[in-house]
């Protein structure tokens, strides 16, 4: 029986480093050279659509998937190194993993679910009781220790899963879509609660999510994955406000799309022309005059204006939608459909929409 080192520091100061990780199933290349760093006390979100490889990356760190190339290390401890032939068994990696399904053992009580990791580490019975109680009360589960998992609500099960992953003080906590099994209403509260918990306990966490809002809310750094490669990484503000690629721009928020053609390029500004309209925007990436391009602007940066002006389009109102905290309006201009938030200026037959040039990003190429 292998007992992982129980003398690990309670405030771990080691950083997780993944270098050039590759993984494939047959011809299906899931990860194609991913590198990342998770500093102590930091939360990194792995964001991406389904099939992007984000969960596979997380599971590779945990040792549940078999990479074909690369290196994974936490501080001095090498978890995986293809070149050196190192592949530490899952149970020796001493990581905490919160499963998307929670994966609580249905035949064990809440207490026993949480205590199992400590028992495996050969910790004395009274200390186990004390540490499990501590973990459960940290997560607001003090009264539920004797329950079985199926007697708990979804939110409570999630907390037990987190307590189970934290109780033995792993240097890094891995979370696979921790909020996706909760109801939409509960999810927002849980998000705030989870962020608070991470900050309060000073955890280093790697969190997988497909929801960009969740990623921005919970993490210090975001890694956006696209077909097994990192599309862009940075702080939530960077990712949202300064996307380097069209993919990032589209993924991070709600947008209007304007397919057209570049007709002028001046000082980092590009003039985008479509059928019956032209707009100045911020040129992103390599653009050439005459090339097809797409303009992308966040919904909240698109403004309703009372009259004609620079970078404004004269459009027709299609319909309006009441969303509770605001209204969303739908406009059309030929084949173009534009959405934006706000109220319609009264009795204006053609409505004017302003797309400020700094907020309208122009990327090369037209989406199919």
């Amino acid at each position, binding site marked *: 029986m292998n007992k*992982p080192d129980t003398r690990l520091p309670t405030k771990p100061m080691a950083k997780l480093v993944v270098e050039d990780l590759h993984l494939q199933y047959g011809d299906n290349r899931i990860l194609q050279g991913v590198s990342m760093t998770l500093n102590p006390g930091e939360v990194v979100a792995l964001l991406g659509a389904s099939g992007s490889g984000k969960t596979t990356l997380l599971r590779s760190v945990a040792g549940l*998937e078999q990479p074909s190339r690369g290196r994974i290390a936490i501080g001095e401890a090498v978890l995986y190194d293809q070149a050196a032939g190192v592949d530490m068994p899952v*149970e020796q990696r001493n990581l905490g993993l919160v499963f998307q399904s929670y*994966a609580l053992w249905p035949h064990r009580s809440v207490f026993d679910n949480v205590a199992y990791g400590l028992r495996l580490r050969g910790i004395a019975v009274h200390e186990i009781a004390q540490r499990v109680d501590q973990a459960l009360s940290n997560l607001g589960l003090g009264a539920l220790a004797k329950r079985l998992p199926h007697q708990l609500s979804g939110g409570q099960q999630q907390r037990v899963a987190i307590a189970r992953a934290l109780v033995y003080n792993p240097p890094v906590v891995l979370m696979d879509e921790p909020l996706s099994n909760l109801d939409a209403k509960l999810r927002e509260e849980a998000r705030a609660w989870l962020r608070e918990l991470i900050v309060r306990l000073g955890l280093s966490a790697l969190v997988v999510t497909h929801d960009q809002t969740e990623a921005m809310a919970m993490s210090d750094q975001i890694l956006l994955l696209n077909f097994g490669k990192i599309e862009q990484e940075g702080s939530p503000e960077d990712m949202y406000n300064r996307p380097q690629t069209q993919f990032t721009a589209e993924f991070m928020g709600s947008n209007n799309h304007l397919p057209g053609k570049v007709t002028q390029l001046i000082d980092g500004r590009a003039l985008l022309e479509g059928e019956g309209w032209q707009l100045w925007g911020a040129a992103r990436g390599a653009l050439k005059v005459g090339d097809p391009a797409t303009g992308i602007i966040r919904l909240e940066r698109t403004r309703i204006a009372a009259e004609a002006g620079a970078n404004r389009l004269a459009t027709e109102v299609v319909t309006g939608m009441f969303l509770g905290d605001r209204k969303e309006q739908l406009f059309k201009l030929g084949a173009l459909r534009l959405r934006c938030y706000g109220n319609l200026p009264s009795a204006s037959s053609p409505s004017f929409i302003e797309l400020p040039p700094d907020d309208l990003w122009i990327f090369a190429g037209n989406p199919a």
Partner: protein
Amino acid sequence: MTARSFSLPRTTVVVITALVILTPLSLIFWQSFLNAPFFNPAKHLSFDAYRFIFEDSDFWTAFLNSIVIAAGMVLIALPLGAALAFLLTRTDLPGQRLIEVLVLVPVFVSPMVLAFGYVVAMGPVGFYSLWAKDLLGEVPWNVYSLASIAVIAGLTHVPHVYLYSSAALKSLGSDVEEAARVVGANPLQVALNVSLPMTAPALFYAAVLVFFLGFELFGLPLVLGDPEGHLVLSTYLYKLTNKLGTPSYHLMAAVAVCIIAVTFPLVLLQRWLLKTAGKYVSVKGKATRQKLLPLGGWKWLALALVALWLSFTIVVPISGIALRAFVEQWGEGIKLAEVLTLENFRQVFDQSDQVRAIVNTFLIGTLGGALAVACYMAIGLAGHRQRGGVAKVLDYLVLLPRAVPGLLAGLAFLWIFLFVPGLKELRNTIFSVWLAYTVVWLAYGLRLISGALLQIGPELEESARTVGASSAQVLRQVTIPLIRFGLLASWLLVFMIFEREYSTGVYLLGQGTEVIGSMLVSLWSAGAIDQVAALSLINIALVAVGLGVALRFGVRLHE
């Protein structure tokens, strides 16, 4: 309106099912409380039959033997079946696909044939015994002892445990096991602390099933228990006829009631276990691609153990029969090359009753199997998406035949065909055997049908109703077409089961109702070893054809 127009056929199905199940059962029950056969005018109600068997020490010995054998089987089959399931679902054991098919062979080979195989292969002058004697100077085993019967029965019932525990392991979300690995458990600790307790309900179910099957055992103890006179309840019942010289139907019925008194609670227990098993594992994970546990060097040891088990349960008995079918005689000092012959098969094909047995067995599997599946489908559809009364009645009704061993069911149907007007004329036709087979395997067949029906999402039928189809039209145009493949698969499985069945036909055996299974029992009693060997091989060939077709069509061989 539409519901009413359909309820007539449904009621008919339920009534016929009830009649076919309850008549023979009540006849057995009634007969057991008479002092003489029920057709004897001098009969009257009494406890004589029970008094007789309870005072018979043979009855108690047989009862005890049944329990010892059944318990022994559980002790042997449970750990081996669970270990086999773990090896095949969780580790990188080589040759998994082949093993998965081979494991099921003992389920589909007639126990009568298997038992006979052990006699000719490992009996005192069996092929392997004599080879062992040449090597070691003596035969190191005795297949006729009570312990041997339990061991052989235990080893041939490993597949039953394997099926249920592998199904449980497959449905066990890999995440709960991965979660244990992540918190620091090694593979062995995962198996013991997570996989085993979480599949415990399935294992317990399998244990009850094996005990139940052990209590019903007939072919193995009949063949292997005879030389040393070991009786179990079913063979005790079978030999009662000879005991008194006259048809002692009341005694047989009393024994039958005693057997059912044990088996029926076991059937109810199984049903209850199956229901609670699902409840227990209520938190289900999502099934992800599982990393198989690398066995390393141990895989060869594991493979060797599996191969050893397979050769004992499949290779030894079947090779014994195959050899015996092609030799004139066998014993000490005989050289194999000098006695090879086709004479045994010539003899079989010279006897009109044995030729009829082969033809009948084939017909009862193919045509009879199709008819049986049609009946099962009618019953299955009668209870399909029905709540309340009808479904509940059907539910419990079909459990009853499950508790009645084939031998007893055959006996009850014999009585019915002997004395019920309108059926008497059919006594000497294969219809009598077919009806008994169909009722005996009713629960099994219905599980196959309901398995197929469960695959259909209710919304497919509901959407047909909303676009304007009546419930009868939904059945004809949506439900039945959708379970076509399930019906084909059920037919193949029922074919194999009907080919292998032997005990149900024993009492129905007569001119015109011969089937290979009951013929084997009768020929074995008469000591016609040559023909038993040849017929057994033909029986194995029929089952093998069914198995081959089933595998070709990708039929799941178990629920």
